């Protein structure tokens, strides 16, 4: 077997395994395809993150972008798209392009450019994970990179000021969320009942918007009006990441309590929904038995079978 694969990426909070969309995409894909990744999140005691994260290291091989990392995993036979038809594979590429063009700018803006969000949440969080003195410099660099990207790709005439660009990118993002919701409909995942690359990408982009507690949350509020997308994220978190809901947020005890309350309510709602889905599935004769176990709310941490779905 090849050398063990290690993923270096940003860690998580607010109930997420990672705050960083690209890191989350790779983590989700690894869970879906059963790839045994050793995940090392950046924290103060780790080497300074050079270049872009996430980075996959396997022996001598170092790979750095989500698309390339996923390609590598597929070549190692960890293929979550095994059952997809060629047309579904094509749809995957198209929807990923849609996410990058229409949703990513607003996501970057919410995290790195919106002043209140950046100063009170993003910068402190990232700075706390990076070793001093890099923590003084790197968050600012990431923020400038994000602004640059948005202005260069979206900021031409007739949009002349940053506020006009902002208005446009949030409009685009909300439309993109609506499209994603319509495409998902009532299915559990985008191509049936097993998650694929597209699910990893959608999850990677949506989950940070959904879970991170920012002061300015217009995108989150829009997302919360699309319950099937929220359910999609929560399903993946509970089934594939088996995260409990009591992860703390650094924003202080009061907000932690409020979050806990909100999360408890969500969990109760989710467990009702999941029981309902469970019942539906039990009635349907076509689903293989192992799918049922992944839908039980994994509070007790029982093993679920997605890990064993290695393609031959």
């Amino acid at each position, binding site marked *: 077997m090849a050398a063990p694969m290690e993923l270096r990426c940003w860690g998580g909070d607010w109930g997420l395994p990672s705050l960083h969309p690209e890191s989350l995409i790779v983590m989700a894909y690894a869970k879906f395809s059963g790839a045994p990744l050793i995940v090392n999140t950046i924290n103060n005691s780790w080497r300074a993150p050079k270049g872009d994260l996430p980075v996959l290291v396997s022996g001598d091989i170092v790979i750095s972008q989500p698309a390339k990392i996923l390609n590598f995993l597929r070549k190692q036979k960890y293929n979550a798209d095994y059952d997809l038809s060629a047309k579904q594979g094509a749809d995957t590429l198209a929807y990923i392009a849609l996410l*990058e063009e229409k949703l990513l700018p607003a996501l970057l803006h919410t995290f790195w450019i919106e002043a209140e969000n950046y100063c009170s949440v993003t910068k402190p969080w990232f700075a706390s994970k990076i070793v001093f003195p890099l923590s003084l410099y790197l968050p600012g660099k990431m923020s400038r990179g994000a602004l640059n990207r948005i202005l260069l790709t979206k900021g031409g005439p007739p949009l002349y000021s940053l506020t006009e660009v902002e208005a446009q990118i949030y409009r685009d993002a909300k439309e993109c969320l609506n499209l994603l919701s319509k495409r998902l409909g009532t299915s559990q995942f985008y191509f049936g009942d097993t998650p694929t690359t597209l699910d990893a990408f959608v999850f990677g982009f949506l989950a940070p918007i959904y879970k991170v507690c920012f002061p300015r949350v217009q995108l989150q509020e829009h997302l919360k009006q699309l319950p099937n997308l929220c359910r999609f994220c929560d399903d993946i978190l509970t089934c594939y990441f088996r995260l409990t809901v009591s992860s703390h947020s650094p924003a202080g005890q009061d907000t932690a309590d409020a979050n806990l309350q909100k999360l408890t309510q969500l969990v109760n709602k989710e467990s009702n929904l999941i029981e309902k889905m469970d019942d539906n599935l039990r009635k349907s004769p076509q689903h293989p038995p192992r799918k049922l176990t992944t839908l039980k709310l994994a509070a007790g941490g029982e093993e679920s079978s997605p890990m064993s779905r290695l393609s031959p």
Partner: protein
Amino acid sequence: SSISTAAEPWPENAALYQQLKEEQILLSDNASSLAVQAFLQMCNLPIRVICRANAEYMSPSGKLPFIHVGNQVVSELGPIVQFVKAKGHSLSDGLDEVQKAEMKAYMELVNNMLLTAELYLQWCDDVTVEEITHPRYGSPYPWPLNRILSYQKQWEVRRKMKAIGWAGKTLEQVLEDVDQCCHALSQRLGTQPYFFNKQPTELDALVFGHLFTILTTQLITDELSEKVKNYSNLTAFCRRIEQQYFEGHEKDSSAIAARSSKRSLLR
């Protein structure tokens, strides 16, 4: 003001502006212009193509092509589709919500991969830049303005490539991306005449614009057009649209002009 635009019918003298066909226009702008022309033909809206050396500066967004209809000026395919829709013409009304989402996603795929690859090839591949792009882009202007303008544009495009992570790609990787995109388009099209079966939509116009231009533009090497030629249903698709919507319009047929530009493209 959107009410007044909707009220006016499509005028006879609607015009589409692009750069000079023979000497100046580049691959990416030609593709975008052809896409808009195809879209308008599919909607049965007459349009004249007017070539101007300063078209880029006349455009309200700096991007080409733009159309001048009545007293409105609209640039780029996306806004033009919206504008035409406000006037009551649409190719995608018959699609359901999921199909519309799919159509938008595939249009983003073409913009994200094909258009970016064309821009990369034109402005970041040194050989192409020296031998084709710089001479063509600056051709209407005297020295040293021609050089200054093309370097300025090149710097702008390279900045953008860097911001989206394409600056580090090699030409082989870019061609790989083009192949991946064509593969996806070919799979999606399958054996249907158009992407949404019987009727063309703006997606068909966009794909036609890019693929036809790639197939008929002569570059330093044939690598780019070979990628498209690998997929026979895509070349058949281009031929079908050309025959149906462009043949018989001898004077302004961009298809025929593109073929002639193939012969005289270099220098």
